């Protein structure tokens, strides 16, 4: 089959337009009177797309370690997302320009001297850059060696998979502390790291399902994914919906029951004050209730249109999940969602698709 059949052809222009418009709005937003508005949506998108891209490699590594052969086809889809990671390193560094607007503890809120040992700009960007660079290198190395191992050119990269998973957990825990928890400088929650990397992984497998359904005419041969693939993927998404919710619930219940003011401020804003309250419920409906109800049924998993729609709702839910974690900390009493938010998001989406396209041109799925 001609590989041009299943990669972006005419739509490449649209993708480039997205990226261009996205960068334009990023620059306009950064120079506007209220740069926080742009930077907060930038941060939301940075975490969302980096998390998705990273979980592609993590998914493949997890399959490797569990000797799972049921995911042989879907792991190729997962691995094609990894190419976004180098882009995300640049996007991370760009955030230095917005640091003043992103991190309240830099100027707006007083924090103790001990906290400043951990929360200061050079250390924060230093550790995150090193961590994400290491993860990028590990992910690329793993994906390549795994592919070579399939062609019997080298050993299966099991140790590399272990290192990748451990690094993922550590780095993503740090990211969640730095880019989510520290935005409410006095708030803390021990489950934050685990909750965040689970959420990223959950979003990642929803993305695999989404790509498998809606990308199959362009990204890979028709009938590449089979019925049992969709069945397995549907089960996985279903399981992670419950697991993700159980972590969210663990955090909520303990804070609600303990009723300590330094902990409840975070939830009070998000669960009891509009408009965040509506968004939080939207996240729960899209991210948990919809997959729970629809994917419970075997027909729901096997009908690709239904499963794909659920996956897209989960992706929207994941976007708003990060949105409601980040934005209320920065602009608690202003809710804006206009062209700025839409185009910055589309810019990130364009970059993600472009990265996937470059990778698929080089290494097509077969």
């Amino acid at each position: 089959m001609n590989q041009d059949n299943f990669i972006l052809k005419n739509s490449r222009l649209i993708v480039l337009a997205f990226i261009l418009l996205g960068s334009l709005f990023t620059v306009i937003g950064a120079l506007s009177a209220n740069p926080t508005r742009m930077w907060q949506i930038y941060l939301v998108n940075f975490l969302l797309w980096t998390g998705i891209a990273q979980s592609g490699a993590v998914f493949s590594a997890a399959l490797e370690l569990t000797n799972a052969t049921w995911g042989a086809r879907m792991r190729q889809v997962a691995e094609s997302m990894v190419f976004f990671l180098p882009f995300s390193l640049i996007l991370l560094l760009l955030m230095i320009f917005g640091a003043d607007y992103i991190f309240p503890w830099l100027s707006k809120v007083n924090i103790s001297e001990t906290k400043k040992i951990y929360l200061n700009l050079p250390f924060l960007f230093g550790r995150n850059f090193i961590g994400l660079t290491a993860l990028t290198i590990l992910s690329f190395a793993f994906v390549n060696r795994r592919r070579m191992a399939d062609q019997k050119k080298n050993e299966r990269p099991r140790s590399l998979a272990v290192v990748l998973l451990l690094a993922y957990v550590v780095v993503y825990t740090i990211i969640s502390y730095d880019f989510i928890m520290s935005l409410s400088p006095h708030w803390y929650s021990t489950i934050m790291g685990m909750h965040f990397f689970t959420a990223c992984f959950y979003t990642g497998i929803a993305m695999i399902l989404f790509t498998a359904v809606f990308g199959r005419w362009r990204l890979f041969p028709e009938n590449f994914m089979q019925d049992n693939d969709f069945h397995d993927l549907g089960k996985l998404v279903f399981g992670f919906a419950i697991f993700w919710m159980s972590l969210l619930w663990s955090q909520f219940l303990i804070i609600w029951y303990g009723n300590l003011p330094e902990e409840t401020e975070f939830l009070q804003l998000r669960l009891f004050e509009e408009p965040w309250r509506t968004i939080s419920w939207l996240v729960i409906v899209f991210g948990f209730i919809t997959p729970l109800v629809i994917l419970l049924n075997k027909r729901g998993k096997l009908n690709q249109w239904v499963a794909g729609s659920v996956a897209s709702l989960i992706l929207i839910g994941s976007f708003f999940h990060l949105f409601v974690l980040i934005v209320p900390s920065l602009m608690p009493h202003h809710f804006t969602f206009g062209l700025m938010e839409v185009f910055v998001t589309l810019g990130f989406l364009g970059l993600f698709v472009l990265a996937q396209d470059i990778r698929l041109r080089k290494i097509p799925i077969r």
Partner: protein
Amino acid sequence: MDKENYFAPTLTADQVSDQVLLQSLKNPGKPFYLALALFGGMIIFGLYCLFTQIVKGLGVAGMNNPVAWGIYLVNFVFWVGIAHSGTLISAILFLFRSRWRTSINRIAEAMTVFAVIMAGIFPLIHVGRIWFAYWLFPYPNARMLWVNFRSPLNWDVFAVSTYMTVSALFFIVGMMPDMAVLRDRFQGIRGKIYGLFAMGWRGTHKQWHHYETAYLLFAALATPLVISVHSIVSWDFAMSILPGWHSTIFAPYFVAGAIFSGTAMVITILFPLRKIFKLENLITDKHFTRLAQMMLLTSLIVSYSYLTEFFIAWYGNNIYEQATFYNRAFGFYGPFFWLMIFCNSLLPLTIFFKKIRSNPKILFLISLLVNVGMWLERFVIIISSLAHDYNPYAWKNYTPTYIEWGVFIGTIGGFLMLFFLFVKFAPVVAISEVKGQIFHDVRGGEHD
């Protein structure tokens, strides 16, 4: 699906049934009865201690004013934790089509049921006035009293009893085909009892069909229960606002710890059992390797939680949290803390080496220490936080008395006694499943 063969290559079907079933026929010999006598002695000592406490009151236990939760609750969490890997191996691995569960799932399930029984005893002893234990259940009563649904200890009543019911049903239903084989081999009263458990099993196609459906449903129902039960156990602590207890990570942290300790206990039991009954061709070294890998994974999650708690205590800038965690590591109970770190976090790291994880003898030793470490973990969490809370005036250390140890020893005896009797009278390996896997690959494979 995992295509690896987990059994000895020479294994045949007749061998499986004979090997497993004949154990029940044979005279187990003197050591078996001596062991039973020892466990009986332990149970009697435990009952004596319990009786002393009932007659004289809770004062005979070492609990004091700040430390109102002594090792009774440590033991409760310890036993509930052990009860977890049974369902993990039976249900979760079944859903994940991990074929290596097949020859060890029966042992793990039995362990689950017996450990839950032992766990359930402790809260009743702990709350005192055990003859009023039925007050824990919400039943319509003449005094128009209602249980305190806000109390996490009451959530435990529901969580643990649900878990016990489902895991016992799972265990009994899973044994039906094997019990039918036993029924056909025995006459008299013993055969009748086996027949009772076989529940009219004839092995028809229709019966198998229903059986498979029921098994899958039980597996799917038991899976969320594994998570929920230990989450609720962890919330006994996390719901309070005591530093060191009030932590949002407690639910996943305790669930991972439970599976960790349960897997360790499976290895601890499996190793001698395999030796005594010469089951080497059914329970191979590969099974131990897989169990060890599971132990390593859960150990890493537990270590992650330890680190997170310390980091957030420092980062959160709350002096009470900081003092509690400093005290946990360097205070009166510090040595226990470091022993716990050694057993739960450092020692399991050796499983990364292939030489160690493929050697059941070393794994057995590691698993023994992990059992100790996981008991200590609950001790460190519960006691060190209580003994050293907000008010220095109220600080007081706690040492368990012989009564408390005695009850613990009694439950160890009870657990082992039940297990030995189970091994003597029931098939320790799921015969039908092993046979199925050797020849037809019916179970543990595609299930839809």
